């Protein structure tokens, strides 16, 4: 999730700017062709920053199936445009529907892949970057804690699911009503663990003089370099070009 060391030469803030630009485009753009271009740019940028894109896609494949299914459903129920596939007079896939479905998938892919760029920065650097931007340290610190503890929670969820299945539960053979009850049971160890952990964490944090003063010093301070300005400049410029082009063809 986080980089082992912070030898990375780019300031996390330039990465944040880049990711914000790319994801704003993902949200604002409507045109599938332009979004594909943005996805290509984001993908290249992610690889340039050393993101394991294939790994991310592999982990997200179940979610992607879900979005693909949503795209098909969108396409079925959205009338308009040419009818591409019809069955007994009922139009199944229309051009407008297909277009919407595809843009949903593109949007998700762009956001997920570009967000991978932030995870190449050490969470400490992200905190420090946000802090130097004037965001209160408490909030920045909470963000870092969340990044740090999400993988632990995932491990725990896996253990819980394994434990209940090892006790003889065949989840896919259980009727829906009972399955809901079981899911509600499974939440219990998770919730209790999160509560317990956060209480212990809060104590440990406070006992190391957290919020002793309104100010704090920073052992490591971040310095923007030429490369960072180049990355941010390029990101902002490219975003402006995309938005302008989209405006010219009236699809924004």
């Amino acid at each position, binding site marked *: 999730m986080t980089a082992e*060391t912070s030898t990375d030469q780019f300031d996390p803030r330039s990465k944040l700017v880049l990711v914000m630009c790319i994801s704003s485009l993902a949200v604002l753009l409507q045109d599938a062709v332009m979004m594909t271009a943005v996805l290509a740019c984001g993908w290249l940028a992610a690889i340039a920053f050393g993101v394991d894109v294939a790994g991310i896609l592999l982990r997200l494949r179940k979610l992607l199936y879900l979005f693909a299914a949503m795209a098909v459903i969108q396409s079925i129920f959205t009338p308009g445009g040419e009818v591409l596939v019809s069955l007994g007079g009922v139009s199944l896939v229309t051009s407008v529907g297909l277009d919407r479905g595809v843009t949903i998938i593109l949007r998700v892919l762009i956001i997920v892949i570009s967000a991978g760029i932030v995870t190449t920065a050490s969470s400490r650097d992200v905190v420090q970057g946000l802090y130097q931007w004037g965001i209160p340290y408490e909030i920045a610190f909470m963000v870092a804690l969340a990044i740090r503890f999400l993988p632990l929670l995932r491990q725990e969820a896996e253990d819980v699911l394994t434990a209940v299945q090892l006790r003889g539960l065949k989840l896919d053979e259980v009727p829906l009503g009972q399955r809901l009850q079981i899911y509600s049971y499974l939440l219990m160890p998770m919730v209790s663990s999160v509560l317990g952990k956060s209480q212990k964490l809060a104590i440990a944090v406070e*006992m*190391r003089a957290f919020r*002793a003063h309104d100010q704090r010093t920073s*052992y490591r301070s971040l310095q923007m370099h030429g490369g960072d300005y180049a990355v941010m400049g390029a990101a902002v410029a490219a975003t402006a070009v995309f938005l302008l082009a989209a405006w010219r063809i009236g699809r924004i």
Partner: protein
Amino acid sequence: MEQVPDGDKTGLDYPLAARGLTFSFPDAGEPLFSGVDLRVRSGEVVTIMGLSGSGKTTLCHCLSGIIPLIRPGQMSGDVLVEGVSTRQLTVPEVASRLGIVFQDPDTQLFFPAVEDEIAFGPENLCVPPAEIELTVQRVMHTVGLPEELRHRNPHHLSGGQKQLVALASVLSLQPQILIFDEVMSQLDADGKKRIRRLIRELAGEGKAVVTVEHDPDNLDIADRVKVLHDGQLVDYQAGWPYCEGDAGRVCRD
């Protein structure tokens, strides 16, 4: 019964002292422990033994000011940290005098690099960065963490190393008092040995140390052993079953 003499207002003789400490959870009738008196000298290791559920961890929380400053609970009596009642101190004031290391390494380490972990406390106290750099080097040396672990993620270290990082992060606040709450229970034999030796060394440097234990094997580092039993903190006596190291014997009663 130990009494803190009135002359010791400055807490120089006894950096950590408890007077008539009584605690009960809200809604619980019986107090968890009552009338606890304890004085810990500089350079001394006092070990508190007790079975699970005897209130050891809660006593740790009282001794370290977590109760009543962070966690609620009905505490009467006083804990004096360097001669001042914890009720009159703020949490950061306590933290720069007293450090506490907990049992579970995973809930006391939050950063992706060892050095960040150690720097967190001094940063909060507004220590200048150049000085923090020296502190990081010094405490890593003290706990015996090699320099090359500095940029490693504590999460990927062994259990023993994690506890060393937790201790280093507390030592960077330069406390005179150290409390160890069952810090060895998740460690293997090597990890335990290292921590035990380190605790003795820290006492040798003049720190006042309290360790809380349920494992009789970790008693050899103690100058004095106290037992929390039936809500009372009493002196360990020879033949006391908790300290036999023979599990079978405890069960027979």
